[in-house]
C-alpha cells in the first residue's frame, strides 16, 4: 500500500501542478542559431519562458544562413501547421504577413510600450499595415572595419577613414608584406563590401534611393559608376585564394596578423573574443571608411504565427514580451556580439565596440543615417537582393566588365526583379 502511494505521489503532484498552471502553453520556435554562442543565446530565452511556466519546443534547422530553415517553414505553413514563432527577418516578414499567416501582437506591444522603445525604421520592419507581427531580437551593425593595429604599426600607416585614403594605406601594407584586406569570395560578402563602399561614398540619402527605393536614375548615376570602380579596385588588395572562403576564416587572417583589415558585420567580434583578443588593444573596431556617422543595420527578429490553441497564444505573447524585456536583451546580446534593439539599456557589461555601436545607433536614428542593409536582406525583397548580388559578384570577379556596363546591368536586373 505504501508502495502504491509512493508511486502515485508524483502523478498526483503533477496533476496539481497542471491544475494550478492551467494557463501554461507551448511555443514551438523555428530558428537556425545552432552554433556554440548562438545556441547559448537561444537557451537564455528558453530559460526565461520556462520560468513563466510555459514549455519550449525547439525546432532548430541548421545550416546555410537559414535557407534550409525557410524551406522547412514554407512546407509547414502551407500544410497549415506553422510553428508559434520563426526567425524571419526584414522584408520577408511583410511577405509572410501578406499571406495572412502572422498573428497580431499589438496588445503586447502596447503594454510593453514598443513604439517608444524602438526607432521608427526598426518598428516599421516589424509591422504589417500598422500592426506588430514580429519582435526584434538584436541589432547588428554591418558597416564595421576590423583592423589589426600591429600590422598597421609595422607598415607605418594609419587606419584609413575614407575610401579615398584607402589605396595609399593598402599599398603601404602590401609593400610591408601583408594582405591589406581579408575577404571571402562569396556573393554575400562581396555585397557586404560593396554596400559599405556605396554608403561611404554615396551617403545615406543616395544609399536609400538606390537600395530601398530602387530609383533607376540613382542606380545608373555617375556616382554609382565611381562606386563600382572603387569596389573593383579592392580586388588587388585581396589575396587570390579568397574565392569561396568563409567570413570567419577571413576574420582569423586579421586575428593572426596575416591581413590588416576586414569589412564585416559585428558578428566578426565573436571570432576575436573567442581568440582571446581585446578590443582597442589587439584589434580595432571602426566604422567602415566614410561611414562614421552612419549605421547599416541587420536585425534578427521572430515573427509570430497565428495559432488556434488559446493557451499556446498566451505562451506566444509571453515570449514576445520577454524578448523585448531588458533581461533577455542584455544576456542575449552579450552572447551574440550584437547590441540590444531596445533603447535606454544599461551598458556596463558591454565592451567598447558594442558601446560605440550603441552610440552610433542612437545618433543615426535621429539624423536619418540609420539605413537597412541590402546585403543582409533588410532593405529589399529576396528577389531584388538576389538580382543585385548577381550583378555585384559577377562584376567583382569578371575583369572584362566595365563599371559603366555593370551599372546598366544593375538597373536592368533590379527592374526585372521588381
Amino acid at each position: 500500500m505504501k508502495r502504491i502511494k509512493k508511486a502515485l505521489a508524483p502523478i498526483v503532484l503533477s496533476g496539481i501542478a497542471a491544475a494550478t498552471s492551467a494557463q501554461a502553453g507551448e511555443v514551438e520556435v523555428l530558428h537556425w542559431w545552432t552554433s556554440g554562442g548562438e545556441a547559448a543565446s537561444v537557451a537564455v530565452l528558453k530559460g526565461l519562458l520556462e520560468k513563466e511556466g510555459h514549455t519550449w519546443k525547439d525546432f532548430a534547422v541548421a545550416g546555410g544562413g537559414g535557407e534550409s530553415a525557410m524551406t522547412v517553414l514554407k512546407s509547414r505553413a502551407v500544410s497549415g501547421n506553422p510553428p508559434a514563432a520563426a526567425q524571419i527577418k526584414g522584408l520577408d516578414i511583410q511577405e509572410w504577413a501578406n499571406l495572412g499567416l502572422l498573428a497580431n501582437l499589438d496588445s503586447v506591444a502596447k503594454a510593453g510600450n514598443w513604439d517608444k522603445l524602438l526607432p521608427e525604421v526598426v518598428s516599421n520592419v516589424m509591422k504589417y499595415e500598422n500592426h506588430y507581427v514580429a519582435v526584434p531580437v538584436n541589432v547588428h551593425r554591418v558597416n564595421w572595419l576590423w583592423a589589426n593595429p600591429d600590422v598597421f604599426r609595422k607598415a607605418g600607416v594609419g587606419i584609413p577613414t575614407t575610401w579615398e585614403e584607402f589605396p595609399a594605406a593598402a599599398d603601404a601594407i602590401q609593400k610591408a608584406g601583408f594582405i591589406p584586406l581579408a575577404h571571402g569570395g562569396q556573393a554575400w560578402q562581396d555585397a557586404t563590401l560593396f554596400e559599405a563602399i556605396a554608403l561611404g561614398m554615396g551617403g545615406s540619402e543616395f544609399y536609400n534611393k538606390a537600395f530601398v527605393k530602387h530609383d533607376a536614375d540613382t542606380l545608373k548615376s555617375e556616382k554609382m559608376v565611381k562606386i563600382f570602380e572603387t569596389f573593383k579596385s579592392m580586388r588587388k588588395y585581396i589575396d587570390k585564394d579568397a574565392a569561396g572562403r568563409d567570413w570567419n576564416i577571413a576574420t582569423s587572417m586579421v586575428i593572426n596578423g596575416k591581413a590588416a583589415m576586414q569589412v564585416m558585420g559585428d558578428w566578426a567580434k565573436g571570432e576575436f573574443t573567442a581568440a582571446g583578443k581585446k578590443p582597442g588593444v589587439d584589434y580595432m573596431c571602426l566604422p567602415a571608411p566614410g561611414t562614421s556617422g552612419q549605421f547599416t543595420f541587420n536585425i534578427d527578429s521572430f515573427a509570430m504565427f497565428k495559432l488556434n490553441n488559446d493557451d499556446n497564444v498566451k505562451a506566444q505573447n509571453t515570449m514576445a514580451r520577454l524578448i523585448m524585456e531588458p533581461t533577455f536583451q542584455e544576456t542575449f546580446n552579450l552572447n551574440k556580439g550584437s547590441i540590444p534593439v531596445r533603447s535606454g539599456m544599461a551598458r556596463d557589461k558591454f565592451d567598447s565596440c558594442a558601446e560605440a555601436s550603441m552610440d552610433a545607433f542612437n545618433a543615426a536614428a535621429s539624423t536619418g543615417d540609420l539605413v537597412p542593409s541590402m546585403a543582409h536582406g533588410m532593405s529589399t525583397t529576396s528577389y531584388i537582393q538576389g538580382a543585385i548580388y548577381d550583378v555585384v559578384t559577377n562584376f567583382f570577379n569578371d575583369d572584362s566588365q566595365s563599371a559603366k556596363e555593370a551599372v546598366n546591368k544593375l538597373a536592368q536586373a533590379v527592374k526585372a526583379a521588381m
Partner: protein
Amino acid sequence: MGAHDRPEATAKAKGGLAWLERWLPKMVLAPTFVMMLVFIYGYIIWTAVLSMTNSRFLPSYDFVGLLQFEKLFENDRWLVACTNLGIFGGLFILVCLALGVTLAILLDQKIRQEGAIRTVYLYPMALSFIVTGTAWKWMLNPGLGLEKVVRDLGFESFSFDWIVDPDMAIYTLVIAAVWQSSGFVMAMFLAGLRGIDNSIIQAAQIDGATLPKIYRRIILPSLRPVFFSAFIILSHIAIKSFDLVAAMTGGGPGYSTDLPATFMYAHSFTRSQIGLGAASAMLMLGGVLAILIPYLYSELRGSRNG
C-alpha cells in the same frame, strides 16, 4: 456428406489460389505504382503548372503564360549556366568515354594484378560528389594545394590557379568529375570487351590483321551499345550535377561555374522565385527528354527488329 464436400472445398481453394496468384503481384506493386504516379509524374505536372504562374514566395496560381521563360532567357546568369552545362557536359562525357575506353583496352591485355588495378580505378565512384568536390577544392586552391606544393619544391613561377579564375573555373569541375566517373566507364567497357566472342578475333588474327586494326574495325564497333549506355548515364550525371558545384566552387567565382541545377535551387529555394525556378526545371527536363527520347526510340525499334 464429408466426401461430398471435399472436392468443392478444394475447387474453392484452387479458385482462391488462382485469384491470389493473379492479383497478388498487382496488389504488391500498386502502392509503388501510385507513389510513382503522384511523386514523380504528379510533381512534374505541378512544376509545369507553377512555371506558368508568378509564384514567388509560396506557390500561387496567377497565370502569366510564358513570362517566366521569357525572363529566364533574358537572365544573364541562366545563359551562363547553360553555356557552362555545354562546356562541362561536353568535355565530361568526351573525356570520360575516351579515358574509359583506353583504360579498359589496356586492362584487357591480360596483365597481372588486374583485379587490384581495376579496384583502384573504380574506387572514386564509391565516393559521393560532395567528398570529391571538397577534396579537389583543397587540392586546387592556389595557397593550399598543388600550386603551393610545386612552388615549395622550388619551381617559383609555377602557377595553376584555375579554380579562382572565372574563365577557367568550369574546367576544374570537369577534372574532378572525370576523376570520379572515368573508372566506372572503364568498368562498363571492360565488361563489354569480355563479352565479345573470342572466335571472331582469332579469325581476324588468322587473316593477318594487326592488333590495332582488330580493335578499330572489330572490337570498338561491336561495343556500340556500351558506348550508348555510357553516354546516357554520363549525360544525365552532367545535367543533374549539383553537389559537385556546391562543394567545389559554390557556383563561384561570381556565378561563373553555375549550372542549371544550382540555378534552379538558388532561385526556387533561397531567392523566393519559385515560378522562375520551376521554369528552369522544366527546361532541364526538356534537356533530359531530348537525350532520352531518341534513345528509347532506337531501343524500341531495335527490339522490334530483333
